[in-house]
């Protein structure tokens, strides 16, 4: 599955948030979106997910225009992983994951045994099967995030959009969640995620989309496009990039 974005523009009233944004993402690819707060990452995601209507431009999934897809059809090809949150009611992890299958069952029917199996599989893939009967409110932040990822898998969409999936997680959980996500992209999912940590882009991204002032500042492999100058212009802090003995690039802030 391939997602194509062409000349996307979006405004909130007078304020232009996105202007002429173009990129694509292919199956098995992990695309990281970098950019300062308020640059329009969430707006971009909302446009991709059909939650916001772009002012101009085109978004297509496998050549099919997004606007021609209904809510259910769209959910069958694209899933969303929000930041982990506290819902009003405490559902079991299994129920939470099972909700992802809703797009697969039509009309007014409820998920059946086939959907229950795909929820099981999704929990298995993410490695949270042992949490199935626990309450979503009683598990840790990292486990919640994995639950939401399993939910997206149960949806069986081939594109998964993640809004800062590691925000609010501790250092270990951030890496564990991202490693799991990386494996999923290796298995053929298209993953588009936003992140605030340049190191995460170096470690996990196949390509990076950098947004600045609503425009594409850079698009390409992290080693090629994520430069010292780019990070400094995105975030307004001075950094140095160093390469360790394994060839991994590491970003270190310069404190003055």
């Amino acid at each position: 599955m391939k997602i194509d974005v062409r000349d996307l523009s979006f405004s909130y009233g007078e304020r232009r948030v996105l202007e002429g944004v173009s990129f694509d993402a292919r199956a098995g690819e992990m695309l990281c979106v970098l950019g300062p707060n308020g640059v329009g990452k969430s707006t971009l995601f909302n446009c991709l997910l059909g939650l916001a209507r772009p002012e101009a431009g085109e978004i297509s999934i496998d050549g099919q225009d997004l606007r021609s897809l209904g809510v259910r059809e769209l959910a069958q090809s694209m899933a969303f992983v929000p930041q982990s949150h506290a819902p009003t009611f405490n559902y079991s992890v299994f129920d939470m994951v099972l909700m992802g299958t809703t797009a697969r069952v039509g009309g007014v029917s409820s998920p059946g045994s086939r959907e229950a199996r795909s929820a099981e599989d999704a929990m298995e893939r993410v490695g949270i099967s042992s949490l199935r009967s626990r309450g979503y409110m009683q598990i840790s932040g990292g486990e919640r995030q994995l639950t939401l990822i399993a939910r997206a898998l149960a949806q069986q969409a081939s594109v998964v959009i993640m809004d800062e999936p590691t925000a609010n997680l501790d250092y270990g959980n951030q890496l564990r969640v991202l490693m799991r996500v990386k494996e999923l992209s290796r298995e053929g999912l298209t993953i588009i995620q936003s992140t605030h940590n340049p190191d995460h882009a170096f470690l996990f991204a196949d390509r990076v989309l950098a947004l600045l002032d609503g425009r594409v500042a850079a698009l390409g492999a992290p080693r090629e496009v994520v430069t010292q100058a780019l990070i400094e212009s995105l975030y307004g802090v001075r950094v140095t990039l160093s390469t360790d003995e394994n060839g991994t690039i590491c970003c270190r802030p310069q404190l003055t």
Partner: protein
Amino acid sequence: MRRLGTTPEDERRGLYTLIVLILAGLVVAGVLVSFALGRYPISPRQLLAALRDKALELLSALTGGAVTATKSDLVTDQMRSILFNVRLPRVLLACLVGCCLSAAGASYQGVFQNPMAAPDILGASSGAAAGAALAILLELGSRMVMVFAFAASLITIALVMIVSRTARGNRLLRIILAGIMVSSLCNALTSFIKLVADPNNILPEITYWMMGSLAKTKPREVLFVIVPMTLGIVPMLLLRWRINLLTLSDSEAKTMGVNVGAVRIAVIICATLVTAASVSVSGLIGWVGLVVPHLVRRLVGNNYRHLLPASMLGGALFLLIVDNVSRNLLLTEIPIGILTSVIGAPFFIWLITRRKETI
């Protein structure tokens, strides 16, 4: 090792089935006990005999006399009259109203993402009260009181929806705020009607109506409300899985393939319909829609697929029991609305303080 084919999921479903069966059994038992209690007790045997006679009578009328109607010696004519004109409608209505108020409460809690939502959150009860008060003031008779209450309740919610549509801001908050405003207006109207009502006969009747009671239930009232109740309950049951997704954020539900706006409106309309129907025949009966779903959440969990049917049975059972207390505890009837509050409020306090768990 777990036995093959028994996952915790199966176990939970088994537990749910068991709870539903127990609740259903208790409702049936409660119905039988309700007939046996009261100034004219009717034993289960007499009840069955009278029901069989009635069935044969209907069958005989339908087949033009091919089936002969019988009359059991167990039951006197007076008993028959009490059974079919007084006891049966009342027992049925207690079950129906309890079932509907619980279902509406549970549904509202889901669509408004608020565990404290009750069936009257949007002003369905305030609207019904204003309508009923108006009909009583105009001395239109009990049938029109019911019709006025039902219509006023629906008009109130329609008004809430229209106001909330034109207001700005968060959609859910807008609906709730509009509900508060409109029901406050209705309360003002009710107060005004009470002010101008004749204090000797009209005012007490209005006050008594507002306390909530099933004492004057007539067969035709049951027939009147059963239509809107069915029209509301059936879609709610069909949509109950999707109510789960409405308790998450709108964007999440949408990206999971749920048409949030349409499902939410459908559930609100259904819940309003059954609330309006209940209130129009029973007056204001509080707490049922809050206490019963919360108790049932403890039993079967928050998944609406299990919660809604179990709440409906639980509500029927609860109101049936309370109604029996209301008509048998003292020589004169205690309005059921007073009892549900007396039971409901302390029970709810116990419920929320019992365990350190988020509600």
